[in-house]
């Protein structure tokens, strides 16, 4: 019996679990995938928005602005890189009115550090903008983080403080009896809890129907992205948006905290919540739209493209409410990442108001050491680490220079990597220009060794995503001796 169960280990569920892990409570996180952060948290624009574009007094506006305020401290505690790189919303001359309206809304939302930049100042700041970009709104609180690193760190920190994580736990049924919820997984596992947090992203509507707090729908909005080789990171240091439309903030050009330029997202509503395919139209659209704002984007230096699905609700705002011990979080699309620390703060408040009795653990530790710090150490520090553990002297991923020591640590940390993509998200092994061509075979070997599994059982991202299907010779009837 748990005190609190969080359904969905995305950035929202992760931040909530981390926030609640300070209490002396039994806490469990349920995740239907093989790893945490596999939904929208895995594939988004990785931007901490300033909060100027959501409608005044909406949850989106309030929680974004508050989240943006909290994010720097949270990322510091979690050992996650946060760069306040500033955002620019750029406009052609005929869009000037929209920029001014955005500026006015930002002031109403309480966003600090906003300023209108006129043509000459703007182009001096961002020389790669197209000449006919006329003006821009500068948001000096705009920042970037790595969303899946943040999600991993939040869940990891919660686990370090005693929370449990159950992966491959796809909730199919929730029953309430007295004050207890019984949650059943597709594979028959059951957990019981007093309080329940529904942060199931795209499926929060389905879970809400099970908890009896439904009545809304969430649909998928496809966003396709492309990533450029790190050698072209000097295209821009700021996140460049175009004037927004009702389908979102438009296609942007932004650096990532790891030095790659990210282009995207497209914005297309689709019916299928599992369809992560990229499309020729989407790729063409990214080329067109980013070229409107920036000149000389090296499209031939794309190292990968991918698709994320935003969980869009039917109310236009985040749905956040508490009823009978169930906190429902629906339609947490953009700016969900930016708002996530504030959502966690608000959910804590809702639970306390709902009668949750809890005291703060004396040994609660809000800090987490990033598993990636090896790359940032001095030569002396690195040598000390290698002397203790020689696996840190063995480079596995050539492009990103990731060592075996880091990969092994990623498998044994909280939450541990269980598949190739999990190692990639934790260490960046395979994220470089060769996209795992060299290192994926070695990573697979290390995973099999550390998890004591056959290489055949290692997957790309859980479920049926196996890499290998049989031995060429040997113990499966192919023995030639």
């Amino acid at each position: 019996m748990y005190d609190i169960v969080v359904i969905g280990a995305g950035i929202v569920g992760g931040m909530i679990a981390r926030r609640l892990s300070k209490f002396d409570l039994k806490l469990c996180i349920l995740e239907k995938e093989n790893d945490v952060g596999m939904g929208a948290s895995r594939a988004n624009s990785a931007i901490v928005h300033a909060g100027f574009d959501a409608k005044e007094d909406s949850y989106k506006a309030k929680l974004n602005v508050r989240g943006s305020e909290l994010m720097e401290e949270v990322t510091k505690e979690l050992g996650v890189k946060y760069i306040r790189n500033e955002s620019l919303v750029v406009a052609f001359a005929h869009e000037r009115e929209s920029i001014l309206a955005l500026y006015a809304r930002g002031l109403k939302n309480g966003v600090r550090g906003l300023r209108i930049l006129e043509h000459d100042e703007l182009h001096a700041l961002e020389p790669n903008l197209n000449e006919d970009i006329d003006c821009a709104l500068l948001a000096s609180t705009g920042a970037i983080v790595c969303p899946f690193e943040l999600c991993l760190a939040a869940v990891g920190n919660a686990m370090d403080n005693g929370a449990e994580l159950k992966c491959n736990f796809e909730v199919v049924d929730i029953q309430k009896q007295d004050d207890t919820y019984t949650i059943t997984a597709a594979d028959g596992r059951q957990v019981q809890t007093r309080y329940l947090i529904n942060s199931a992203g795209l499926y929060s509507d389905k879970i809400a129907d099970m908890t009896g707090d439904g009545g809304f729908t969430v649909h998928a909005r496809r966003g396709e992205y492309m990533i450029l080789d790190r050698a072209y990171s000097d295209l821009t240091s700021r996140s460049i948006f175009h004037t927004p439309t009702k389908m979102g903030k438009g296609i942007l050009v932004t650096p990532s905290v790891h030095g790659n330029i990210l282009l995207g997202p497209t914005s297309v509503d689709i019916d299928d919540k599992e369809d992560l395919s990229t499309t020729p139209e989407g790729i063409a659209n990214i080329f067109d739209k980013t070229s409107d704002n920036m000149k000389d984007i090296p499209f031939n230096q794309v190292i990968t493209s991918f698709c994320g699905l935003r969980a869009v609700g039917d109310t236009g705002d985040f749905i956040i409410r508490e009823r009978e011990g169930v906190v429902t979080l629906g339609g947490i699309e953009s700016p969900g990442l930016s708002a996530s620390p504030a959502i966690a703060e608000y959910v804590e408040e809702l639970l306390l108001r709902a009668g949750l009795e809890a005291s703060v653990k004396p040994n609660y530790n809000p800090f987490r050491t990033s598993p990636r710090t090896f790359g940032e150490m001095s030569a002396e520090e690195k040598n000390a680490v290698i002397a203790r553990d020689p696996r840190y002297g063995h480079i596995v991923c050539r492009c990103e220079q990731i060592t075996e020591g880091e990969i092994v640590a990623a498998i044994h940390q909280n939450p541990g990597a269980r598949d190739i993509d999990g190692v990639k998200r934790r260490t960046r092994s395979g994220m470089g220009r060769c996209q795992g061509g060299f290192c994926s075979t070695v990573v697979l070997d290390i995973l099999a060794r550390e998890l004591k599994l056959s290489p055949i059982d290692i997957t790309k991202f859980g479920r049926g995503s196996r890499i290998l299907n049989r031995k060429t010779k040997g113990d499966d009837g192919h023995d030639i001796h």
Partner: protein
Amino acid sequence: MISIDLVIVGGGSAGMSAAVAAYDAGLRSILLLERGNALGGILLQCVHNGFGLHRFKEELTGPEYAYRYETQVLERNIPFKLNTTVLDISPDRVITAINSEDGLFTIRAGAIILAMGCRERAKGALNIAGTRPAGIFSAGTAQKYINIDGYMPGNEVVILGSGDIGLIMARRMTLEGAHVKAVCELMPYSGGLARNIQQCLNDFDIPLMLSHTVVEIHGRERVTGVTIAHVDEKRRPIPETRQYIACDTLLLSCGLIPENELTCGAGIPLDRVTNGAIVDQNRQTEIPGIFACGNVLHVHDLVDYVSEEAEIAGRAAAAFVQGNAAASDREIALRTDGKIRYTVPQRITAADAVSVYFRVADVYRNVQITVRDGDRVIYEKKKAKVTPGEMETVRLSADHLRTLDGNCLEFSLVLIDAQEEEQS
């Protein structure tokens, strides 16, 4: 910091050949750095035969070819470090490397030979639409799983790209019991060697679909199929020719890219066509004392030529360290006409005989390879057929080079038929 006369980055065929040549030229302070756990590089996973026909007049497998050079390295007691990755090379020849035994360490090198080889173009660069399931491999990754690790990555296979590794893997997977349904090639011709098309595809009835590409990948967890399409002359897919092929594996063999991150880090200028360093006839880059050879310089189709080129670099690096490098008083630029895409070397600084290697941009029949010094033709050679998949050579003698009027040699391909038509 230790000092070593010659440090060679990469212990594959280029690095080993260069080390042996430098040793035989009298150099003793040599260190070979290899990131893998054995000398040999990519040859170790190339278990097929066909290596060494030019060098040894024998058909060796990749590991056999590598073993011949490894033996020479061992016989000479040339020092090498395995499992060692070079992280940085500075313009003044300080190398930073890492391994488990020495940790992070630096070496001051009298000369450096870059022999890092190449890597395969990754799927991301191809922008194929669709999902990102398991079952998509570069051909070389699949080759490693099968030949080194002993595991099959799939049963029903489509291969995109007809480079040599793709062709070799079509045969290899067939021999291991997989069904290779098609090899699709975007271009109207294969980028692989003619002998590989015969021996790896035709002999196994594997269809080569020229002017075809994969336009979409299907499957959520594991690949379930691909959609292919015919492309028009501008390489755009023709929608009405879309065709679904069920498969669990997509192999990509879409080109090789010299691995020049270290080269760029040292500030060495690259040739935009080869993606390798700009070098002179000694394979010396624009930074004196830093040489490059093998696939890091330009992608070769035969390892025999890699060894040959590495020996040039090895001897020249030895001469540089020994202070015997011939002083050069001339600078001849080698230019190409577009039909010839590039030359290696790109510049010549001496009047000794030199072999110039190049590749052409398309398949051409009945051509004359011409080298001009201003208006004067100093060399010409007729060929019935040239293709982008096969590297060509021109041997310029000392006589050719001694009496040049200008400081530029123009390499061009004249289409003989077209010339005759114009005249008639």
